[in-house]
């Protein structure tokens, strides 16, 4: 295994993407085989690299400390496996779901290109290649959303690009500051105290990482994309890749670059962001009437657990956050793929139009149930394990308010999945529900694989924990600290687990209450929706009052209009008169300038001159 092999995960998918783009439509079978085969090869490569443990490739580049530096170690190799695995599943799924989509070929190419950039970003060990690959993801993000082909797809794509772009630019600033503070751009060599300028760098980079993962308030494009982008895209980027990349970077920032201590200001900041995200997003998810939108809000909410976990700065909490990252990717992706399967056969994902599909789509229903139980934190699935670890960590920090926020989140998560599952798969099958059958194997297989992983990582959690998560924490905890989480991971007889179970029961009761009151499963969340204060808040949220992007857009448009009217128009007005008065004849133009018009501009020039001269003269002293 030579270091140059590290280039394969980056260049391989990129080349494959170009090939896929160029293959004509008629060779669709070749394209599908190439895609799935290429993804499988990437998975194999990822495992091979994982076995190697440590590898580093350094190519001198620009001088000034900027090198093309790639580093494989336990964390990055773990993420590589995860990325490759999801790529394979999504590629397989895409061969069927996007078969007849007008731009299906581009979609396939874009996901490979995304994988190439993502691999590069994960492996990068120097800030400049990291930024290069990170930014490149923006391009494919935009392209993938526009493939949705709806009237508002373009607008959502722009929104996604701008919000992500803003987060990325913030990250660049943070990187610039960190570079200045630490004096080097090589990531593996950086470790600073988060005070002063470094604290500013931390916050900026945190914005970049958390924004990529989809935490509040940088999440507002995801629910829009849920409607405007293809559902396969949702399973790919917001569910899996972005979480993996964003939380990977967040973990590196909190564990490697900066020494975050429990109870410190930065830790509190992370925990607040996490807690707020959990609660607010799940409240929004609860009242959604479309399955895809519901799932997308949950995607945002689950990020909160990850951020909270890492923010506790307590080993079990951090481990929980990281484990949650991979678990969430698994079941969230599975849930979206189920939604896609339903959409593929039934043509819609609106809750009130569906019902009782479990008889006709048993495999999809099974996959959905498993993943839904996992995301709700039901024993013994993987979600339970990681959530418990996060709860333990949150309680251990002493700020129980965060644990309470997380539990509230758990209540509503389960309640909303009860509603969703009941409305789509269980319950009565009314006449208006279209006739469906189970989806093709290529679509069901990824769902089942993911459901299986939910069970595996839950019951046999020793495997992922010892293999993937625990090595990441080595070196970051005091000597002798208890690093083995597996022993009590599945224990239900401790107070924290009991409270969690209590939350699940509460959610179940809420669901039944809503069901009895309103009849249809799809309306089971209405009691919450119609609560006095919440109702107004929900209405405002629907009108996008809380969306910083939308508000920002309005402000900027207003500012631009003001500038245009106050500055530009008067200047233009000054000169408009000349031509309209003298007429369009060519010789007429050669008249002298008029008073008050040209002279005005001259006046500005003179004023500017005086100011500049004064400025330079004063400063020169």
């Amino acid at each position, binding site marked *: 295994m030579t270091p140059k092999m590290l280039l394969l995960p980056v260049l391989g998918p990129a080349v494959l993407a170009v090939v896929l783009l160029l293959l004509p439509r008629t060779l669709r079978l070749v394209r599908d085989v190439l895609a799935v085969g290429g993804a499988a090869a990437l998975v194999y490569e990822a495992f091979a690299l994982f076995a190697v443990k440590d590898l580093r490739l350094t190519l001198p580049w620009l001088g000034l400390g900027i090198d093309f530096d790639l580093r494989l170690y336990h964390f990055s190799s773990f993420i590589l496996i995860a990325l490759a695995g999801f790529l394979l599943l999504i590629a397989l799924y895409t061969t069927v779901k996007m078969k007849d989509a007008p731009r299906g070929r581009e979609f396939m190419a874009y996901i490979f290109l995304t994988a190439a950039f993502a691999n590069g970003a994960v492996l990068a060990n120097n800030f400049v290649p990291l930024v290069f690959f990170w930014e490149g993801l923006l391009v494919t993000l935009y392209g993938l959303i526009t493939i949705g082909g709806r009237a508002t797809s373009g607008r959502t794509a722009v929104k996604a690009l701008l919000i992500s772009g803003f987060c990325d630019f913030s990250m660049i600033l943070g990187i610039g500051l960190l570079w200045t503070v630490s004096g080097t751009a090589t990531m593996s060599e950086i470790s600073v105290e988060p005070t002063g300028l470094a604290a500013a760098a931390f916050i900026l980079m945190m914005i970049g990482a958390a924004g990529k993962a989809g935490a509040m308030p940088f999440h507002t494009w995801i629910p829009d994309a849920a409607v405007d982008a293809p559902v396969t895209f949702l399973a790919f980027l917001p569910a899996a890749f972005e979480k993996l990349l964003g939380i990977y970077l967040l973990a590196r920032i909190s564990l490697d670059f900066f020494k975050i201590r429990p109870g410190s200001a930065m830790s509190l900041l992370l925990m607040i962001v996490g807690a707020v995200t959990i609660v607010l997003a799940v409240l929004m998810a609860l009242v959604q009437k479309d399955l895809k939108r519901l799932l997308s809000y949950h995607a945002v909410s689950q990020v909160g657990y990850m951020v909270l976990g890492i923010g506790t700065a307590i080993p079990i909490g951090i481990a929980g956050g990281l484990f949650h990252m991979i678990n969430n990717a698994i079941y969230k992706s599975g849930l979206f793929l189920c939604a896609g399967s339903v959409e593929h056969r039934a043509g819609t994902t609106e809750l009130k139009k569906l019902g009782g599909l479990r008889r006709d789509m048993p495999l999809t229903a099974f996959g959905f149930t498993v993943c839904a139980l996992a995301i709700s934190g039901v024993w013994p699935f993987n979600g339970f394990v990681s959530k418990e670890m996060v709860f333990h960590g949150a309680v251990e920090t002493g700020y129980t308010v965060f644990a309470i926020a997380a539990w509230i989140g758990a209540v509503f998560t389960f309640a909303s999945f009860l509603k969703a599952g009941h409305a789509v798969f269980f319950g009565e099958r009314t006449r208006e529900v279209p006739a469906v059958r189970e989806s093709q194997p290529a679509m069901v297989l990824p769902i089942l694989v993911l459901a299986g992983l939910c069970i595996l990582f839950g019951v046999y959690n020793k495997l992922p924990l010892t293999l993937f998560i625990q090595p990441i924490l080595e070196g970051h905890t005091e000597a002798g600290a208890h690093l083995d989480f597996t022993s009590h991971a599945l224990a239900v007889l401790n107070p924290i687990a009991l409270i969690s179970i209590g939350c699940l029961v509460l959610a179940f009761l809420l669901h039944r209450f809503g069901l009895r009151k309103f009849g249809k499963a799809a309306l089971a969340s209405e009691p919450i929706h119609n609560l006095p204060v919440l109702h107004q808040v929900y209405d405002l949220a629907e009108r996008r009052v809380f969306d910083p992007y939308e508000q920002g857009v309005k402000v900027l448009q207003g500012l631009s209009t003001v500038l245009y009217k106050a500055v530009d128009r008067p200047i233009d007005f000054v000169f408009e008169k000349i031509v309209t008065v003298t007429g369009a004849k060519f010789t007429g133009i050669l008249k002298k300038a008029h008073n008050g018009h040209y002279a005005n501009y001259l006046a500005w020039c003179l004023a500017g001159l*005086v100011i500049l001269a004064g400025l330079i003269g004063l400063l020169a002293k």
Partner: protein
Amino acid sequence: MVLQTALLIGLVIFSVLAILLKDLLKSAISLAAASLLLGIIFFRMNAPYAGVFEISVVAGLITVLFILTIALTGGGHDVRESKLVNWVFPLVFVAFIVIDALVMKSLLGKVPALPSGTEAGVFGDVLWKGRTLDLVGQIAVILAGVFAVLALFRKRDKHD
């Protein structure tokens, strides 16, 4: 000294008049007067060539061109103006003059300068041999002017 100052003040006044006057003809003549004064100033400063060029080109050629154009276009009709911009330029201009005068006064005699070197030579020599690159530039400007006239006065058969 007094005469020089008077000439300079006159120059400024006629220049400002040239852009403030509403009647085109009076404005063109103002320009000619300003240029004449400037030419005289040049002569008094021992720059005869500059003075000659100034008077012949501006007070002569350009003024004639303007007057011809005004006559041919039947110009001279007054121009409508917007009232609210009438006062901006004079105000700023006056402010500029005041600030300028104060600054220049404080700098009088304090402008650092190297002792002037030897005379470079006769005007003709300097122009031809000393500043040949500028001559190339001048040729280029003349070419540009010729082509501009050719382009802007061309016969148009079809235009979009």
